[in-house]
């Protein structure tokens, strides 16, 4: 236990402590002594809040879409993910690094990408200008597409394993013998159990998407930027005086994420103990 804490919590605590010192002007080369100026400018400016909101939006859309697709795939044909060619093909997308997926999406959805060329050849658009703005766009369509591509196979594997372990096939059959239609048994039995069992993983995946870096770096827009991209910009771009702000954002984001995880998972375990 002590070793585990030493390897996980301690470095994190040191990191946050150092960030706090840096953000308040108490550490780092060129620090000017205690000041709350950097905290003030991050908290009162709109940039960080927009970035946090945008990160939540991207994570919610990505998880929502991937969840829908994966649930549909597993509920409609649970056995095809357990045996046969699909059962191992579905692992292949998981081997792709995020940067590669981002690049594939860029090549497919950008103005001069495959999709745009195809619709142009088919005579549906008159050129690049007519193709919708799906990459480097303010709504994060490209980022969401890349995350959905990465998350859907992962959720399919997760749900398909849960389906088997929780013997949901047998429950569905039971529901059918009691007169439930396929749709009813999916909505009332299979999906609720899958979601309940997968909830902690979904929360963690949400956090993972929120903090992703490579995908929004390539596919994102300059404004708003996702939290990680914004932090790196503050940390590494031209103005050294911006660096404390990067540490402020780092601390705020960590507090937000740890708070959300603790709140959601504790609530969940509380619910479970009641059942």
């Amino acid at each position: 236990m002590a070793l585990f804490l030493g390897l996980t919590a301690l470095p994190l605590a040191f990191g946050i402590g150092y960030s706090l010192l840096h953000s308040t002007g108490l550490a780092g080369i060129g620090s000017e002594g205690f000041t709350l100026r950097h905290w003030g400018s991050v908290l009162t400016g709109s940039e960080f809040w927009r970035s946090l909101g945008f990160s939540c939006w991207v994570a919610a859309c990505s998880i929502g879409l991937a969840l829908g697709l994966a649930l549909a795939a597993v509920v409609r044909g649970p056995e095809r993910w357990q045996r046969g060619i699909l059962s191992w093909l579905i692992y292949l997308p998981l081997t792709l690094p995020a940067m590669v997926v981002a690049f594939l999406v860029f090549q497919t959805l950008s103005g001069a990408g495959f999709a745009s060329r195809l619709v142009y050849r088919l005579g549906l658009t008159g050129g690049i200008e007519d193709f919708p703005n799906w990459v480097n766009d303010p709504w994060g369509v490209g980022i969401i597409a890349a995350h959905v591509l990465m998350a859907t196979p992962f959720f399919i594997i997760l749900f398909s394993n849960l389906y088997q372990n929780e013997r949901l096939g047998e429950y569905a059959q039971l529901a059918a013998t009691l007169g439930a239609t396929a749709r009813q048994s999916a909505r009332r039995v299979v999906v609720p159990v899958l979601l309940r069992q997968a909830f902690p993983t979904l929360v963690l995946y949400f956090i993972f998407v929120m903090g992703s870096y490579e995908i929004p770096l390539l596919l994102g827009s300059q404004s708003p930027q996702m939290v990680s991209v914004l932090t790196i910009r503050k940390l590494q771009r031209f103005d050294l005086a911006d660096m404390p702000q990067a540490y402020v954002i780092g601390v705020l984001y960590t507090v937000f994420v740890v708070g959300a995880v603790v709140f959601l998972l504790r609530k969940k375990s509380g619910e479970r103990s009641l059942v």
Partner: protein
Amino acid sequence: MQRTIFLFTALFLVACNDSPQQPTDPATLTWEQTLQQAQGSTVHLMMWQGDPLINAYMQQYVAPAVKEQFGITLETASGQGNVIVQTLMTEMEAGKSNSELDLAWINGETFYQLRQIDALFGPWTDRLPNAQFIDFQNPFINTDFQQPVGGYECPWGNVQMAVIYNSEFVKEPPRTREALADFVKTHPGKFTFDTQFTGLTFLKSLLIDIAGGGTALHGDFDEKKYLQSSALLWDYLREIKPFLWKNGKTYPDAVAPMHQLFANGELWFTMSNNDCEVDSKVLQGLFPTTARAYVPDFGSIQNSHYMGIPKLSGNKAGAMVVANFLISPEAQFKKQDPSVWGDGTVLDLSKLPGDWKQQFENLPTRKYAQPRSELQKHALRELAPEYMIRLAKDFREQIINQ
């Protein structure tokens, strides 16, 4: 008495005998001693590795040459400006006595930041035998972002920013600010600039033009002048913003994605800080043969790039020997060849021995960029670093976030 003398002599001898084993300050060594100390050592160089031609020059030409001539193993690591600053800053904060780096490829804003945190060793460049050939009279070489280099970084190459266009679509490229605005408005979505170094360098040339051109913004940062001219610059950009790529709502994050958009036809323009890059990109087959580089009449910034030695480097002698090789006539000559890299030399050709001057002048000329002499007419000096910092910040507030 004799015993005392003997004791002192013995102590003295021991002390003398001991001293060569102490790490000597490389600034006090003769060049012969520097070469000796560098022999058999490893030099860790951090450089931007985003261009295959530059990487090939370093790995297939420079590294074998310094190994063979000086017995130095050259190890390169990838990283530019901010990464170098971060690395050295972290090492200093952690109180390390020896840096991971011995040499770093830097220019203007990195030089400024590294000097701010006092992370550079120097002055050292006057110790290099080949420094005598460097064109130190040239203000584009002896001054980096309005800051005298003062021997703290060694000039390596000299380039001028150029605008690249596709002559298949753009018959006559816009040469003035007004012409550029007209062009952008009549051809929406085909022009943009990136948010990093190159794009900001382009904005700087517009700022200088607005301020009155030429030397209008020379000298230290001038808040009043900056506010006056930048207000007009933001007005200008707001006017053309709806007609830029993606309606000016976003901008490429670096010059590489912009090159890609140019190569696949989405953009008709791209930019480069190296006036010769268009030639090397066409030779590599990345740009269409209809790509051309030019400098608008309002000018573009010419600057040099340099090699710096971190203060905490454990192998300053090796770093100096490598730097000296990099500014040798043969290494500079090779580098200027457009099929190798196409980077402009920092040497004063009239100072070179033998027939080097002739050899430089007989190098194959570039095909897709205007000749250097033509570009030189519109060359602008780099501004004080604060201009760039403010432009980066205000561009985001005034244009991107609006």
